């Protein structure tokens, strides 16, 4: 106690808080921590800044001098020279504007542009109950944007006002369904494959209808034979539709076409091109390869030696060769492998090959997901007395597929990017086929960068949104107990 009294000075009240040093607050602190935390980081930052500066210096004049309205490359150059002086360069986006329809539709008949457009719009509606089932807000936003897009696009494509009004009624009905009872839209999802094929290729309505009817027939066969046991009824549900597709459709369609002809103008596959082609192949490939991949993955993990060997052989063969060689098989060799005189559609052949290619990769991804599941899950399913298919359907696959989402989506992205390769079997993909044929015209000879940048941007938007969607899906399906 005595020491305290002898002290010359004892502070009795708290000092007021001082402001932190300038280097420890706000933007300066952020800069110090994130950009200049050490000599190496400082050097890296300056290198990054230099790269950005270099890019802007080199390319921004070219972008700033963009020309949007011209009839040829020469005119573009004249405009740039007149505006910005001799030697100036500028991007000539007029090529995209001038050949927009070419990039989107290829040689699809001009008066029928509304059909692929509507098919694309309906695709989003058909996919909505599956892709955006949980959040009404996201669903309504996406579908609203699609509806507005269709309503703007239709008059622009030269559709009569009466038909556009009909479309408006249809859209309002579907939006109401999406708001109130989203599962009702599953009916659209169910009929969409046949509907899309009919709208894209046209022709008699009975072809796609009868093909889709095969699924109903299979279901009916399953119901009729259910008493006889799983194996027999599954066999019937597979065999009867296959017989129907192979032998039943042709006579029935001939009969219906004669009695109740209902057809819209047909479009041959050679007319397809641009993003209509890329999306047709991409969407069909994505929709078909997922089930096929899951079946292959299950077959590869099967206890049955022969089934497993066949699955391994198929998967390793497909994964071991480049997609180009499979496309060559589609365009050159299928004529050898099929009965003499068969000649079926080139787009269909390409879709089959692309589907097989993606399915082999998906099978490997799903196999990884199946292997990552703890053994306890399989044992739990067995101890509940579930048979193989029930265990797979209720316990194993939902978890395994959830684990495999990132891999599956990146396979889909790869598939969509690979649709550009169809140019090498003579189809007009948007990247090389359309670009080359646009550049072959006299006006647009020598326009190199703009078409590539445009097509690249569209692919980027599609693929980037797919990868973001997969992240959203992972978050949505995430359960905290893991």
């Amino acid at each position, binding site marked *: 106690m005595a020491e305290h009294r002898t002290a010359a000075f004892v502070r009795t009240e708290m000092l007021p808080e001082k402001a932190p040093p300038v280097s420890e607050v706000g933007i300066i602190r952020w800069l110090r921590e*994130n950009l200049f935390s050490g000599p190496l980081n400082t050097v890296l930052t300056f290198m*990054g800044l230099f790269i950005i500066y270099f890019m802007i210096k080199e390319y921004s004049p070219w972008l700033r001098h963009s020309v949007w309205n011209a009839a040829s490359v020469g005119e573009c150059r004249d405009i740039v020279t007149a505006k910005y002086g001799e030697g100036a360069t500028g991007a000539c986006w007029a090529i995209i504007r001038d050949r927009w329809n070419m990039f989107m539709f290829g040689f699809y008949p001009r008066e029928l542009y509304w059909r692929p457009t509507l098919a694309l719009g309906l695709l989003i509606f058909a996919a909505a109950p599956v892709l955006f089932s949980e959040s009404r807000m996201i669903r309504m936003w996406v579908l609203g944007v699609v509806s507005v897009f269709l309503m703007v696009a239709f008059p622009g494509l030269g559709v009569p006002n009466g038909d556009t009004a009909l479309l408006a009624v249809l859209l309002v009905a579907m939006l109401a369904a999406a708001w109130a009872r989203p599962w009702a839209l599953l009916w659209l999802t169910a009929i969409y494959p046949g509907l899309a094929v009919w709208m894209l290729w046209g022709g008699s309505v009975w072809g796609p209808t009868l093909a889709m009817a095969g699924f109903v027939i299979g279901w009916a066969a399953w119901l009729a034979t259910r008493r006889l046991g799983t194996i027999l009824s599954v066999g019937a549900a597979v065999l009867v539709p296959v017989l129907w597709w192979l032998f039943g459709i042709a006579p029935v369609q001939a009969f219906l076409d004669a009695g109740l002809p209902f057809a819209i103008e047909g479009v041959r596959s050679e007319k397809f091109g641009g993003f209509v082609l890329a999306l047709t192949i991409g969407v069909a490939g994505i929709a078909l390869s997922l089930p096929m991949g899951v079946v292959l993955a299950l077959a590869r993990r099967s206890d049955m030696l022969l089934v497993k060997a066949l699955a391994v052989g198929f998967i390793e063969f497909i994964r071991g060769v480049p997609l180009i060689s499979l496309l060559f098989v589609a365009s*050159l060799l299928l004529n050898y492998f099929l009965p003499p005189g068969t000649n079926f559609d080139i787009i269909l052949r390409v879709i089959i090959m692309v589907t097989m290619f993606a399915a082999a990769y998906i099978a490997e991804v799903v196999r990884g997901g199946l292997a990552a599941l703890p053994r306890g899950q399989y044992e739990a399913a067995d101890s509940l007395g579930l048979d193989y298919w029930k265990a797979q359907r209720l316990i194993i696959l939902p978890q395994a597929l959830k684990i495999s989402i990132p891999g599956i989506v990146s396979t889909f992205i790869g598939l969509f990017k690979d649709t550009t390769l169809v140019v090498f079997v003579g189809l007009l993909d948007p990247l090389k086929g359309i670009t080359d044929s646009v550049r072959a015209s006299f006006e647009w000879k020598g326009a190199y960068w703009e078409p*590539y940048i445009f097509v690249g941007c569209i692919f980027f938007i599609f693929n980037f949104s797919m990868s973001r969607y997969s992240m959203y899906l992972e978050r949505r399906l995430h359960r905290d107990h893991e």
Partner: protein
Amino acid sequence: MAIASEPPKHGFRLSQLLYDTRYRSMTIQVVVMMMFMAFAAWLVDNTVSNLAARGKDFNFGFLGVRSGYDIGQRLIAYDSDSTHARAMLVGLLNTLLVSFLGCIVATVIGVFVGVLRLSKNWLVARLMTIYVEIFRNVPVLLWILIILAVFTEAAPLPNAFKEGGDASMMLFDSIAVTNRYTAVPDPLFSRSLGNIDIGIFLISSDLLALIAAIVAGWYARRIVLRRATFVQNATGERPVTWWKSAALLILPGVLTLWALGFHLGYPSLQGFNFTGGINVSNAFMSLWLALSLYTGAFIAEIVRSGVMAISHGQTEAAYALGLRPGRTMNLVILPQALRVIIPPLISQFLNLTKNSSLAIATGYLDLRGTLGGITLNQTGRELETVLLMMLIYLVLSLMISGAMNIYNASVKLKER
């Protein structure tokens, strides 16, 4: 007290084939087998009748026939009098060349970008993210076409490199990028050992000697390191090895190069073209660069996820044991991260090899360009050529994935 129920004592009934799990899988397999055989027979039958209808047969005799076309870039002797088989071999070697070089550059880019993406530097991490996202989400064909267009449209004519021209060579006047080819220095040996003829093609003895010297040095280094570990285990003191190991890694190669009289032949402009170096076609350059940049973006993601997969606790545990940062990296982090990184990395190498068939877009004559391109068109034997091409690609892929399986088995966690 458990009462085991007796199995029913009736004879075998036919329905057991379907409803008894002991026999059911056998039934299914027999049915699958029959369907598969029927399908295969159907395909073969169709092929035979189609071939007959076109008056063709199925034989590979065309491989021995004179090819009649030239290949611009080749690793082994070839001219238009050579056979189709040799053209196929040239194409295969071209495929292997671009794949091998592409894998190396892609790995370098991928590791570099993957590490930088993890860096604390905000700007650099963002730049690398942009690179990765842009390259991963756009078809590789686009990158090939764009880089090809950069070479053919934006690069100067060889002529522009003359005195007073407006183009200049890079890297101390050793590389010239022109709109037709890229001229690079040619490695030359003044005291060359000549070539070894192994029957099909010639192998440079200088290259073999160089590889032998480097491999020998590498083995010697391993022996030195093993001895150091042995001494450390015996005495507790680790001898200083860094200078020995560095010398053994560097010196053998350098000494061999010196002994062989290695020097570079620099390209120089003679008339309208460069001579004295190697003129690498832009078809090859654009394919190589595009594949490397594209695959590099994927590898960057693999490296990043591999490093992130190792929990921070591992580093902390290593520090707690008193390991220095360098040893922590070598002994704790890398062995675990590599286990995660290597399998997808190899599958990216596989993808790059398969994507090299996109040489079709640049005109570089790889396996698809020779066997599946010109040979196919000249002989009209699409069945044989395409099947052979697929078989070769398949064997390549199986070899690469076989190597991966061996590696995987060797680094697998030993579970007890």
